[in-house]
Structures are given as C-alpha cells and as structure tokens.
C-alpha cells in the first residue's frame, strides 16, 4: 500500500508547494499594487513639517499629522458624511421603485427610460456641473448641503437603478402576484414583499451611492465657493494646493478620507464585489 500511495503523496505535496509559491508571488503583486496606499499611511505617521525625508517604515509613529488634519478638516469630513448619507438615501428612494417598475411592469416608456439611464452614465460630469452652476446660482443653492446631495446623486441613481433592476429581472413575478391576490396594493406589495427580498441588491446600491457621493470632487469644486460648506475631497485639494505643503497632515487627511472605502470593503466585501461587476456587465 505504501508503495502505491507514496508517489501520490509526493505529487500532492509538490502541488501544494507550487500553490503556496503562487500565493507568495500573488502577495508580492498585490503589495506592489497597494504600495501607494501603504505609502499614504506611512507618510501620515511622519512628523509634521514638509517631511524632508520620510523613512520607508513608520518606526517612530507621530500622530501630529492626524491632530492637525482633524483640526483643519474635521468640519469638512462631517460635511462629506452628511452629503454622502443624504445622496445614498435619495438614490435608494428614487431608484428602488423605478428599478422595480422597469423590471416588472409592462408600461409604455420603460425602454426609453432604461436607455436614458444607461447612457446617462456616460455623460461627462463637467457637462452636469456647467449647467448646474448656472441654475444653482440664481436659486441660492451654491454652498448648500441639499444642492450637493442632489448633484452627487447623479452618479448613484443611474447605478442603483441598473444594479437593482438586474436583480429584480430574475425575481419571480408569482410572489408579487400572490401578494396582490391577497389584496395588497402595488405600494404595499413593493414595500413588504419586494424590498425585503431584494435586500442584497439594495445594500450594494446603497454602498456605491454612498461611496460615489463621498468621493465626489467635481461637484464640490464647482458648486461650493467658500469654506463653510466644503466636502473633504475639496479640503484635501486646497490642502495640496498651498505652497508650504505639510505632507503628514495631507496624508492624514487622505487616510481619513479613505476610511469609508476601507471599512466598507472589509465589512461588506460580498456587496462590494457584486457592485464591481454588476455595474458594467448586465
């Protein structure tokens, strides 16, 4: 028996050996790709000043960059958070019923609306910004949170509609029909049957709508002018624009601005992965 299994074991061992070798190379590839992220964290822990020579490792971490970043950008972080949550909620409220109708109702005009939603993602943001500025100015919506929420949702809404529609297309109509026969109205059926079942696609759509608004730079750049309402992306930009750049404070702000993406990637990996492929190929 031993003479029979020995080569098999050896082959198996060799195979796990190469597999682990692949893992090592894979880790190296990811390390190269993520070096800029590491470098951001490393530089954020360097002493204040324009960091003449950051070490390759943060052996002596200094948190003064973070305290300066929080003092300068704390308010902007809060603005970004409010805008992103607002844009996320607005996107879901507008997109969810629409996605359901596009997937399940046979009504006129849905094909046109779907085409509009698809092509809207290809419209350059600067086109929207150009026009919104000319409308927001007389309406007094420059430098306003609602103005930013509405503008930032322009990325979340089409994306959320497409993601949720793709899911609801596969949703069996019989479930809704059963609820309808039991006397549920459309709204009731949508609220208590469709939404709970499409929880996963709702979460994916919400995560991306939040991240789009959190990451927005163009609307912040064009639709705000002062310091009172300033999302952190714009705060970061004005930070690097100054002549005497304090890189540890800049990188601390960059780290703080990256936190939502990192946190969501860790706690909601499944949904993030679903959104990454779902947005492009339907």
């Amino acid at each position, binding site marked *: 028996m031993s003479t029979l299994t020995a080569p098999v074991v050896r082959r198996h061992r060799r195979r796990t050996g190469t597999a682990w070798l692949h893992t090592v190379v894979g880790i190296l590839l990811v390390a190269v790709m993520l070096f*800029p992220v590491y470098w951001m964290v490393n530089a954020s822990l360097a002493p204040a000043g324009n960091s003449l020579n950051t070490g390759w490792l943060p052996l002596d971490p200094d948190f003064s960059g973070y305290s300066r970043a929080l003092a300068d950008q704390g308010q902007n972080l809060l603005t970004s958070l409010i805008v992103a949550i607002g844009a996320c909620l607005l996107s879901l409220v507008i997109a969810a019923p629409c996605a359901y109708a596009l997937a399940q109702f046979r009504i006129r005009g849905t094909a046109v609306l779907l085409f*509009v*939603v698809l092509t*809207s993602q*290809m419209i*350059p943001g*600067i086109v929207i910004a150009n*026009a919104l500025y000319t409308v927001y100015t007389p309406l007094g919506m420059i430098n306003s949170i609602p103005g930013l929420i509405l503008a930032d949702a322009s990325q979340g809404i089409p994306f959320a509609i497409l993601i949720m529609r793709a899911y609801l297309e596969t949703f069996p109509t019989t479930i809704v029909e059963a609820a309808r026969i039991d006397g549920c109205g459309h709204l009731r059926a949508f609220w208590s049957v469709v939404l709970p079942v499409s929880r996963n696609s709702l979460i994916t759509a919400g995560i991306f709508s939040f991240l789009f608004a959190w990451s927005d730079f163009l609307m912040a750049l064009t639709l705000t002018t002062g310091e009172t309402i300033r999302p952190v*992306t714009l705060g970061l930009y004005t930070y690097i624009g100054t002549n005497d750049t304090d890189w540890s404070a800049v990188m601390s702000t960059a780290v703080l601005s990256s936190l939502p993406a990192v946190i969501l*990637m860790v706690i909601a990996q499944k949904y993030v992965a679903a959104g990454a492929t779902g947005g492009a190929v339907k």
Partner: protein
Amino acid sequence: MTAQRIDRRRSRRRDLMVRYAFVLPAALYMLAFFGYPIVKNLVMSFQAYDFSTFFNGRAPFVGFENYAATLSDPIFVRALTNTGLFTIGSIVGQFVLGLGLALYFRRRFPLSGLLRSLLLLPWLLPMIVSAAVWRWILEQDNGALNRFLEGIGLISDPIPWLNSSDTALVAVIIVNIWLGIPFNVVLLYSGLQAIPEEIYEAGALDGATGARSFAHLTLPLLRPVVSVVLLLGVIYTIKVLDLIIGLTGGGPANATQTLATRSYEMSFVEFDFGQGAALSNILIVIALAFSIVYLRANARAAKNG
C-alpha cells in the same frame, strides 16, 4: 352593466397611474439632472455666456462663435491630442496589466480570493486621494519613486515627473493605469471564470496547451468581455477630470490639459461658460459615439452569452 364597465375602466386607469408613479421620481430626476444640463449646455454653447451674465442675466446668441473660438484655440488642439494619448495609453496599460493579473489569479492557490479583493482598493478610494498620494510619491526631491530609482542606481538626477512638460503626461497616464487596473481585473477575471473548464480539457487533448490554448481558446472566448472592458474603459477615461486637476491642474504649460479639464477651466476659471459648454459638447459627442458602440457590443455579448 355600463356602470360596472366604467368602474372597471376607472380602476384600471388608477392601477396604471400607480404603476407610473413608481417611475415618476426617477424620470423627473433624470430630466432635471441629465436632460436639462444637456439642453442647457447646447443652448449655452451658442450664447455669449460669461461672468456678466450672472449679474445682468443677458446672454446674447452668437451663433457658432464659441465653436469657432474653441477650434481655433491652439490649446484645444493640445487638449484633443492629450485626451487621445491619455485615453489610449491608459487603456492599453490597464488592459495588459489587468489581463495579466486576471490570468494569474485564475490559478487556484491559497488566499487568492482575499488578495483579489484587496486589489479592488485603489478603485474604491476617492480619486482626489489617489491624486494626493501620487503627488507625494512623484515629488521631485523627496518622492518615493525618485528615491527608489536613485537607490537602485537607475537614475542619477531626480526626475521632475509632474513639473516638467516632457514627463507630466506620462506620469498622469501611469497613475491612471494604476487606478484602472482593479476594474479591468474584476471584469476580465469574471469573464475568464465563465469559460468552462471542459473546453481546456478538450483543447489539451488536441494539443492546445500554454500559449496555444491562450491564443486559440481563451482570447476568442473572452472577446465579448474584452470589447465591453475596452469600450467602458474609453468612456470612463475620456472624461477623467479629478485625477488630472489633482495631479497637475492641466499643467505644466498645458502638457496634461484634456478636453474635460479645459472645459472646466473655461467655465470655472475663465468664466466663459459659452466656450466651456462648446468644449463639453464636443466631449459629449465623442463619449456618445463610444457609448453607442458599447451598447451594441453589450447587447451582442448578452445575446451570445
């Protein structure tokens, strides 16, 4: 009988109205935040719409003056060329490296799933964060890249990556390639996963292994996904603005100016919304041309897949 029929018709009409109510908010939003801006841009591009317009509300129509001014501007030619170079350079780099990584991660090995999801990170970070980090990495005197290249003896003098008009566009393209790799890996990897293993087994029996199986099996089967990835890449890349504004602001001396950044500059720095709109309309036409090709390719991929 008639009363009953009217009743039924009424309830059907009510039902139809409820159904339309589901799409109404989205339709209104799309109209206000996409339809209106597109029309407004079109109208503005034929108007003298500048700083004074915001005070006196006057924006006289000037015909094709804005387009004529835009097209005869030497910076426009520069921006158009840069947009082309930026797009082609980014797409080729992202695709080649993305496909390489996707093929690598196709092998089964421990932790591959975790490593693959870590690769997504650059794509999820706000673009302006990436711009800030790369500005620091590419910094002339203390940037990590120059220190590394000097350390291994590849260069003796630090390269002013973002500050020289010879290197700035290349540097911006490199950063954009880095940003786009995750997106390419995700889509190409899912495309590779969709190719059934049996095809390779059958191919191996016919002698198709290694490079031959890649050329004769993987590439042809991956083609629908490849065309979607490339076209979406083009559509996303020609409108990139955050990254360039954050890295170079279009400079030095317009070396990294693209149609998108120039349109921004025209409207919001020079306050000539007429010319800014004309430029962004040219950008829309280019983006829509690729979008139509994309939607066709996507429909074809859906039909075949």
